[in-house]
Each structure stands twice: as structure tokens, then as C-alpha cells.
């Protein structure tokens, strides 16, 4: 920033750039999840370097597959990252969060299985092409997103309350779609999307997540989605007077989240080729909201950084996998996670970061006396 330079005009050129670069990095929003990721990596590096080993194995059917903790993290974080995309937009425009994503993921998965199974519960062959199943699931999920969006934007109900409806009812709806049966798809082709495509050693969800990220990057680049949702989130009244329809924008973000839910639900059922209504994507909404918060985005809406949210999702998965690796029992994982999360969130709070920047400055610029004072 050219701005900060004039405070340091009496400093030697080199230290200017060092302080400036540190300041710049620390002030970037993406710094928080990146720093968290670094800490986790360092911790694993010290505790057990084998954590980072990636090996090329053979799967049971003889195809080459990559395995290792890093692959697991990238693989398992896919749904989280995809959902974080939609949640970031919803948060930005509506200043609230959708807590029904876990339940609607169950619905999405249930719809996919219903279409593929038809009237039977364990067919030998799929009753419809997978793409059709996916598209129907996409439409249904977007409709549920639209429902949430309508309650929030047109009836002006707080997002958390509005989505409480589907949070409560979603899993029942999912079970009801399949008459409370547990359909199983035996065709291995269906499993490709949640596991591996034969011959490709990288798990498919990683590709799907990457595609979603590319799509949202393009959308943000070639539309005004960012400007609109930020403006609406910050000041709906002034947005309206500038010709934006705040209700419509909020509604849209929920529909986009619905699309993300469809993709996540599709991956989830493809992983197992079946579904467990009460367990699938359980508590994922909290992880998704955490990812958004961890990315340094204000949960009260407004400005957002998509990259930071997505990184946040990977940090959370990294943490979960690390805990699993150290044999923390699955019932205790939540408690460990909570501790780490509270540390991360406190560290990322603006007030703490400001202090950190100041302390750093005191360290680096002790000799500069006066100039330091000017900046502080």
C-alpha cells in the first residue's frame, strides 16, 4: 500500500518492504485459515512426519489408487468445501446462516437413490441414468433452497429460525422419500463419484470440488454476484435505492446454496452407494458455518472472501483427520475440535489481530522510534 509508505519515509528501504510485507500478509483475510493450516502442518510434521506420506496402492479391484492422510483430507473435505461456497454467499447477503444443510443433504441423497432405484429398494440395475438422477436432485435441492430463501427474504424471518424448519423436518422428509427403506445400489458405476474412477488414482470428489470452485470463480468474475450480495448484506436500504432488489439477491443465494447441497448430497450417497438418513452429513452445517467463520468472514454479513471460506473447510477437515490419526475416540473428537476452534476463532478476531500486528511492529521497528508511533 502506498499509503503506509509515507509513514516510513525516513526508514531504510529494505526494512520498509519487510514490515510492509508482513503487515500486508497479516491483514489479508486469507491469512487466518492459512496460518491455521500451517500450524496444523507443523504439528503433524513434528509429531509424526509419516502423516504426509502418499503411496500408490492397488485397490481391491486392482486399480491404482493414491492413499495417505493428505489424500483423505482432500477427499473428505470436498462436501464441506462445496457447501462452504454456498454458505459464504448466504452469510454475506442475509447476514445469517442456513442450519438445514445437513438435513437437506440427506434429502438430496435420498432423491438420487429414489430415482436410481425406482420402485424397488435393491435393484440389480439402475433404473435411470445417473445424470438424470443428479439433475432431479439438483432441482429438488434448489427448490428446498428456494423455500428457505423465500421464508428469509419475503417473510423476513431470521435465517437461523427460517432454516430451523428444514433442520428439524429434513431427515424425516429424506426417509419418507424412500418409504423409510434403505435402498442400496449394487452397480459399481454409481460408486465412481464418491470413490475412484477405475484407472484414475485420485478420488473423484476432489475433482468435483475443484469443478465447483472453478464454477464459482467464474460466476464471481463474470457476474456482479459479489457486489450485489455484499451491498445487500451491508446496507439493504441503500442497495434498494441503487436499483438492487435485496429480497431477490438473498433468495438467489439460498438457491445457489441449494445447488451446492445437491452436489454434496450426491457425493455422500455415492461414497457408500446407500444412505443412512439419521447419520449422513450429520452436524455438517456446523462445520460449514465454522469454515466460513474460520475464513475470517463476518457472520453478520457483508464483505466476504470465497478463498478463505474454502480454505477454512480444508482446515477443519485437516483437524478432524489429525485427531482421528492420533486415535482420539470419535465421541471425544468434538470436544478436541471445540478447543482448537475456539483458539483459532479468538486468534482471528480483528481485535486480537490488531494487537498482533502492533506487537510485530514493535519487534521489527524498535529502532525506528518515532515512525513506529505514527503507525500505531
Amino acid at each position: 500500500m502506498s499509503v503506509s509508505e509515507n509513514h516510513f519515509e525516513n526508514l531504510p528501504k529494505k526494512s520498509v518492504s519487510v514490515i510492509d510485507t508482513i503487515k500486508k500478509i497479516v491483514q489479508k483475510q486469507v491469512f487466518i485459515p492459512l496460518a491455521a493450516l500451517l500450524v496444523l502442518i507443523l504439528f503433524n510434521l513434528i509429531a509424526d512426519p509419516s502423516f504426509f506420506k502418499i503411496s500408490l496402492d492397488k485397490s481391491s479391484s486392482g486399480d491404482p489408487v493414491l492413499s495417505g492422510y493428505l489424500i483423505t483430507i482432500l477427499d473428505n473435505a470436498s462436501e464441506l468445501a462445496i457447501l462452504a461456497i454456498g454458505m459464504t454467499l448466504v452469510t454475506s447477503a442475509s447476514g445469517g446462516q442456513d442450519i438445514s444443510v445437513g438435513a437437506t443433504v440427506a434429502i438430496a441423497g435420498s432423491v438420487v437413490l429414489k430415482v436410481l432405484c425406482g420402485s424397488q429398494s435393491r435393484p440389480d440395475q439402475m433404473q435411470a441414468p445417473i445424470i438424470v438422477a443428479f439433475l432431479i436432485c439438483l432441482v429438488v435441492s434448489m427448490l428446498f433452497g428456494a423455500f428457505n430463501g423465500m421464508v428469509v427474504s419475503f417473510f423476513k424471518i431470521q435465517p437461523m429460525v427460517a432454516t430451523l424448519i428444514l433442520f428439524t423436518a429434513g431427515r424425516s422428509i429424506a426417509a419418507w422419500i424412500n418409504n423409510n427403506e434403505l435402498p442400496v445400489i449394487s452397480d459399481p458405476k454409481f460408486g465412481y463419484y464418491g470413490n475412484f474412477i477405475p484407472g484414475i488414482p485420485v478420488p473423484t470428489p476432489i475433482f468435483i470440488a475443484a469443478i465447483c470452485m472453478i464454477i464459482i470463480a467464474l460466476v464471481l468474475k463474470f457476474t456482479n454476484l459479489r457486489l450485489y450480495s455484499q451491498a445487500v448484506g451491508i446496507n439493504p436500504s441503500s442497495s434498494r435505492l441503487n436499483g438492487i432488489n435485496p429480497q431477490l439477491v438473498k433468495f438467489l443465494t439460498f438457491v445457489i446454496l441449494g445447488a451446492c447441497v445437491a452436489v454434496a448430497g450426491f457425493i455422500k450417497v455415492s461414497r457408500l452407494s446407500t444412505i443412512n438418513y439419521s447419520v449422513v452429513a450429520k452436524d455438517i452445517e456446523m462445520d460449514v458455518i465454522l469454515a466460513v467463520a474460520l475464513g475470517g468472514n463476518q457472520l453478520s454479513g457483508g464483505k466476504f472472501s470465497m478463498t478463505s471460506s474454502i480454505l477454512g473447510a480444508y482446515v477443519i477437515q485437516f483437524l478432524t483427520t489429525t485427531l482421528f490419526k492420533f486415535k482420539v475416540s470419535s465421541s471425544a473428537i468434538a470436544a478436541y475440535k471445540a478447543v482448537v476452534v475456539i483458539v483459532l476463532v479468538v486468534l482471528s478476531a480483528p481485535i486480537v489481530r490488531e494487537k498482533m500486528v502492533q506487537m510485530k511492529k514493535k519487534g521489527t521497528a524498535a529502532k525506528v522510534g518515532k515512525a513506529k508511533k505514527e503507525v500505531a
Partner: protein
Amino acid sequence: MENNAVLEMRGICKYFPGVRALENVDFTLREGEIHALMGENGAGKSTLIKVLTGVYSKDGGDIRLAGVPVHIRSPQDAQNMGISTVYQEITLCPNLTVAENMYIGRTKGPLTNWKKMNTDAAKLLDSLSIPAKATQQLGSCSIAVQQMVAIARAVDSDCKVLILDEPTSSLDEQEVKKLFSLMLSLKEKGVGIIFVTHFLEQVYEVCDRITVLRDGKLVGEYIIEDLPRVQLVSKMLGKEFDDMAEIKSEEDAAHIEYDGIPVYEAEKLTGTTGIAPFDFEIHKGEVNGFTGLLGSGRSECVRAIFGADRVAGGTVKVNGKKVKINKPLDAMKNGISYLPEDRKRDGIVGDLSVRDNIILALQVMKGFFRPFSRSQAEAFADEYIKLLSIKTASSDTPIKSLSGGNQQKVILARWLLANPVYLILDEPTRGIDIGTKVEIQKLVLKLAAEGKSVTFISSELDEMIRTCSRLVVMRDGKVVGELKGSDLNQNTIMATIAGGES
């Protein structure tokens, strides 16, 4: 050190990234005086006050209260030391009652005696003759009454130093008078009052002393009798003042073709906000104004023109063609721009950068699927930052960190960029320093000379007379008169506003 000084500030410094907001500023307030703090936007008045009230921590200098050095860490601290403030923007909670607002944060212990609080509040409101009930929700009061409640709150705490930061900008004349008599009685009691305002008249009406700031530096402290108005203005601006009255040329109304098709024409237009159906038209190159007392419906009229509130009926023609304007976007597409009255609530998008705020309207008109490239947006922003000389560290700075006048310029830039044929400016000069005011008035006339039509609303009559060639006068939601030419003088306007035969 002076014996009777209640407050001394010496060598105060405050820096923000890229801006030296205050540099080595001295300020002395004596017992029982009303001391005006003057300066243009961004001169550092608000910053100085925020330092004094503990909102900002100072980067240098000393503060003494009655000779004792103090360190003010928070607004609560300041209040405990007897420094009370009423800010320019209302900082109370609209969803609490009037009484709660007056006593919030000031009750001792965890329990509140609601009954006592309400009676105390009612008594105080009564003694200041503020037309509000103690149990009424604050948000349901007019802005003026809210402001007075804020003052009541400040007055009620045992204060030695009372800071009034632009308290009069949303009050009408009657209310200002009431406030002044209140200030004078507080002065008798020995309270030192710091009065920040842009209204020169008011300074000369009540103040004893003036301290002038410019660009974050102290220009000087003067006794009011020693500083004639013209000199004060030139000290604030830092240059010889060119006569404001000269900005409107004599024959400027001549180029308007009143016989042609109006740029905008409304018939029996009515909204849902309590205004009677009204007819209105404006021609190419014309500057007209809506005037009337606060709450007379002048803002509601222009909001109806822009489609800002729900339009209930009436026909609208733009350039002779019938159009439907039901929402702001319709108006924008027909070349109408509207700078709203309440800058904070309806104008700025606080966290967004100056650049995004400038391009917002044009971007929305261009469409959701056609965003401007970064370089294009930057070019627009830089052009208008230069054109209106907006003081900002960069076009990336969030608009909320700019001073009020500069925020207003950004909003103005937004609507100029939209290149309207008809520009509505609702109180564009409120809470803005005199230099910028003149700039804006000049700009309005320049736009008109270029063939744009402008509706200009201001609470200051002389400002309207200087800029407008036609005035629509309103009373109680109805259009009660239209004044032109030689009728455009204070007396006729006042008479029309007040009623009687017109």
C-alpha cells in the same frame, strides 16, 4: 495555564493509516463558555472530539480536566469524568424506549427501578419541553426529537463539559431556539460547552469563542467579537473567500424552454407515505426545489418520483412518453438519479470501498451479468475522486472511514457517473462544511447549464434561493404554491410556507 479552564488539550496528535487527522492541536475550554469548534470537513473536528471522549486513543499530547492530567480510555471513562457528548449522527437505540435510552448504561447495580426511571425521564423531558413520552419507543419519534432526547441524556448526567457535535443539523428553527436557550442556561451554571456546527449564524448567535482547525492543524483561537464572519470563513478555507452570492448568474433562467416538452412530468402522483397527489414537471436545464418545513412532505415527493417508496397512483411521463416507475431501477433506467436525504441509512454502503460505492448505480444499470472490469471501475473511481476532489487515502478505502462531506461527494459521484437527465438531490449539503456546500451548489448550476434538470432540496432557504429558479412549496403533505422569478425571496417563501393567501 488559565485559572478557569475546565478542559485543556495540548499538542494532541492522532494518525490513521495514510491520514494525519490531528497534528499538535491545542484546545482550551473555560468554565461557563460556549466554544465553537470550526473547520471544514476532514479538518479534524470530529476526530478531536472522539479523542476527548475516549472513542479514539490519542497518539500524542495531554488532556487536563480542571488542571488535573487525565487519561481517557473509553466513552464510559469520559462520562464518569463529566464529559458528555451528543454526536452528529444519532447514536441511541431506536428499538428501546425514550427513558431507557436516557438511562442506558448509567444505572447503578444490576437492578433497575423502572418506575423511577420513567418518572425521572418524564420530568426531564418536560423541563426541556421535548415532545416525547418516556415510555415511547425512540424509533417512533422524528429525527429531531431523537436528537433532543440525546441532548437530554447528555444534560442529565452531571456534566462539566458538554460536547454538541452538529446537534442542529436536523432541527428546525423552533427547535434550534429551544436548544439555544437550554445551552445558555447550562452556561449560566458553569458548564463548558463545545459546539460543533456548520451554521455560521448559529455560531455568532450563541458562542463566546471560536477555535478553528484546518487539515488537522490548529489555525487559532479567537474571541467572537474579534473575528468577523468573512474572516472566519477565510480562516476555515485557508484562502480568501469568493463571494457565495455570486455563483448564480443573472440570466441563467433564460435558456430554459418552458414551452417545450418537460423532461419529467407527473400527474396526480401519490405514494403511500402520506402525501396528497401532486402534479409536477421539470424542464431541460432547470433547477427547481421543494421547500417546506421539516416533515412537510418534500422528501416524500421526490421519493415518489424516484419510486423509492411504493407508488400508489398517478401517471408519469419522461420526455413526453408515458412510463411506469414503480421501483428505483425503473427510475434509473429512465435517467433519473436520486441522492437520498439520510446518507448513512440510504446512501452509503459502509464496508464497501469508495470505488464500489461510486460505480454501484451505473453497475446495477448495466446489469447483473455485465460487471465492469477492475481497470474500468478504477478509471471511473479515479476520475470522480479527482473531479469532486474527494479526500480519501485510495479508492480501496472503505467509505465509512471518510468524513461526512467526503462520503456525500462519493454518493454524488455515484449518481453523476450514472449520467442522469434528471438529478434529484435531497439535502445534499446537510452536515457539510461551507466550502463543499458552495462546491455542490456550483456543480448543480453547472449541470443545469449542461442541460440536465436538477431538483434541489435544502433546509437552508438562502441556499435554495441561490440555486433554484423555481420553488415548489409544501405544507402538511400538500403542494401549496409554486414560486418563480421575483417571488424567489425569503419573505415570499416564508409567507407561502406559513400559509394565508397565496
